[in-house]
């Protein structure tokens, strides 16, 4: 009894140690990203242009440069950049004449809702399809699904978007081809999920973004299920008389979730890239679309702020995936050897 309690306390302590190690890693990564962002700003940006515009003679420029401390050694400037960054000040956008963080964050809901819609579609389709392909590997349906998944993996996401637009917007005229449509403001969050028009606008981009992830996840679910179905405990469960469906869903799927989440977690970066591509095709006013606009117009503060924001998103989601797999797996060893 006492032994069990002590064991539990020790498990809790290792879990805490694991989490604090992860948090420290996350902070280090963010620091590295901020330093890169600073270096990019130093190399490409001219802070004076942010303030004065371009048509100002050299003498007042030099005066202001000195006043702002821009002639200080780079280490001082880096420290100042980091202090400002922690306070949420990442500079002013050339295009929008507003704080860049504000500009980027205002676009976050659009990107988030697009990713949410796509993830829902992926989840609702890939799990049943993957299980089916694993339990009936030789059936015609499974072959069809796997064949289609090779096709799906071979069609670049921007092309899927263009094809969907051609069919459903240009030829049939059923669905809108660009923008978010009518949105509703909930505090700081601008949502397109509450109006019919917003949902209509979301449908094609959501489908497009899910199409690139679906084949991968169907294969992942299938692979993980195949591994589990071949294992001893599944055979034992069948032998003791558990029904087929119960074994699939209750035993195998539950254990297949873990590798799924681990490998799915590796896709976060790709998801960001695919979201950017989808946003470009549908002129979806999200963060990726904003980034490309910033690149074409050489808005360096906005570019670097996007880098920091995307880095933060990446670190947060990765940490969440780690915590999720920790929470799901009772056997995980928490001392760093997984």
């Amino acid at each position, binding site marked *: 009894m006492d032994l069990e309690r002590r064991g539990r306390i020790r498990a809790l302590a290792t879990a805490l140690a694991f989490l604090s190690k992860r948090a420290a890693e996350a902070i280090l990564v963010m620091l590295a990203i901020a330093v890169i962002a600073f270096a*990019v700003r130093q*190399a*490409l940006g001219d802070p004076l242009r942010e303030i004065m515009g371009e048509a100002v003679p050299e003498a007042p420029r030099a005066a202001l440069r000195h006043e702002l401390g821009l002639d200080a050694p780079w280490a001082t400037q880096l420290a100042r950049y980091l202090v400002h960054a922690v306070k949420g000040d990442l500079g002013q956008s050339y295009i929008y004449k507003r704080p860049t963080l504000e500009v980027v964050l205002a676009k976050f809901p659009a990107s988030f809702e697009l990713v949410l819609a796509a993830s829902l579609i992926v989840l609702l389709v890939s799990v049943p399809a993957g299980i089916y392909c694993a339990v009936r590997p030789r059936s015609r349906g499974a072959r069809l699904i796997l064949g289609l998944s*090779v*096709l799906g*993996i*071979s*069609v*670049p*996401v*921007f*092309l899927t978007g*263009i*094809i969907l*637009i*051609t069919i459903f917007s*240009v030829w049939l005229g059923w669905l809108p*081809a660009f923008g978010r449509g009518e949105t509703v403001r909930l505090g700081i969050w601008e949502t397109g999920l509450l109006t019919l028009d917003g949902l209509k606008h979301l449908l094609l981009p959501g489908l497009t973004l899910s199409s690139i992830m679906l084949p991968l996840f169907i294969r992942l679910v299938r692979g993980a299920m195949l591994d589990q179905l071949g294992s001893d405990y599944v055979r034992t469960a069948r032998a003791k008389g558990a029904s087929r469906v119960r074994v699939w869903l209750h035993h195998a799927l539950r254990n297949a979730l873990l590798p799924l989440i681990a490998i799915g*977690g*590796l*896709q*976060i*970066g*790709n*998801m*960001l*890239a*695919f979201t*950017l*591509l989808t946003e*470009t*095709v549908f002129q979806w006013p999200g963060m990726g679309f904003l*980034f*490309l606009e*910033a*690149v*074409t117009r*050489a808005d*360096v503060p906005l*570019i670097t702020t996007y*880098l920091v924001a*995307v880095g933060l998103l990446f670190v947060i989601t*990765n940490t969440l995936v780690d915590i999720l797999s920790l929470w799901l797996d009772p056997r995980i060893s928490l001392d760093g050897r997984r």
Partner: protein
Amino acid sequence: MSAGRSRGALASVRTLALDRPGAALAAMLLGAVALAALFAPFIAPQNPFDLASFDVLDAELPPAWLEGGSRHFLLGADSQGRDLFSAILYGTRISLTVGVLAVAIQAAIGIPLGLIAGYVGGRVDRLIARAADVQLSLSTLMLAIIALALVRAGLGGETLGRFAVPLLVVVIGLAEWPYFARTARAATQVEAAKDHVRAGRALGASDATIVRRHILPNILSPLIVVATTQVAGAIMAEAALSFLGLGLPMTEPSLGTLIRSGYDLIFAGIWWVTVLPGLTLVGVLVAVNVLGDALRDALDPRLTAR
């Protein structure tokens, strides 16, 4: 010995063709596309990079089989009057070149690292594995987008366009070495434990000789499978980057650039400028992926045992 091996290879190619007509078809299609791309200057009716040879009157001509099409423009023309058939041939050439060269870089980095990790083991192995993990968790496409976007923001679109091919090759090539490293490492570990390697060591062969003569030749087949899938990935990455305007410029279009240039026209009902290069791209990618899947299945001992 070597004659026996090549006869074995021929036999396995024949079995592959008979067992998997899809894969054989894919291989033939790829061969045809590669040849067409290689001999593009001799096949193409027009030089799609020579802007002076275009005629605005030909702009947006539909493909030959549609009403208003001309037999001189088999697949129609784009908004500048560029012959699409020629543009697609040259575009495929660029896409394949970037894909193959980028994968060559990946292999050149990944395979030696994998061999070292698998053969030496211990701390070196852990270090390389960790680096591979970190590299894999960062998305290649995202890194490439950011890298090229910074080049474009810093040096301007024109400079980016001029150095697009080497830049794309290096950016796509540097990021994906871990796939080769992991495969090479796992295969090396299996191979290094085998008798012929131990015998070689007992006979006093140096580590370099063992790796080069006894391990590398025996781990080539899984590496070929990786290379196939990686080529598909690299071609797709190139197309995506060019579509975003971060790759090849309109004066020297790749398939991705052509798709981008035709994108605005689909709303005017001019679909061929986008769809035909798109279909070419998908055709190449499907063929490479089908071939990769077939190779993987053919070389997977777990599947042949069943």
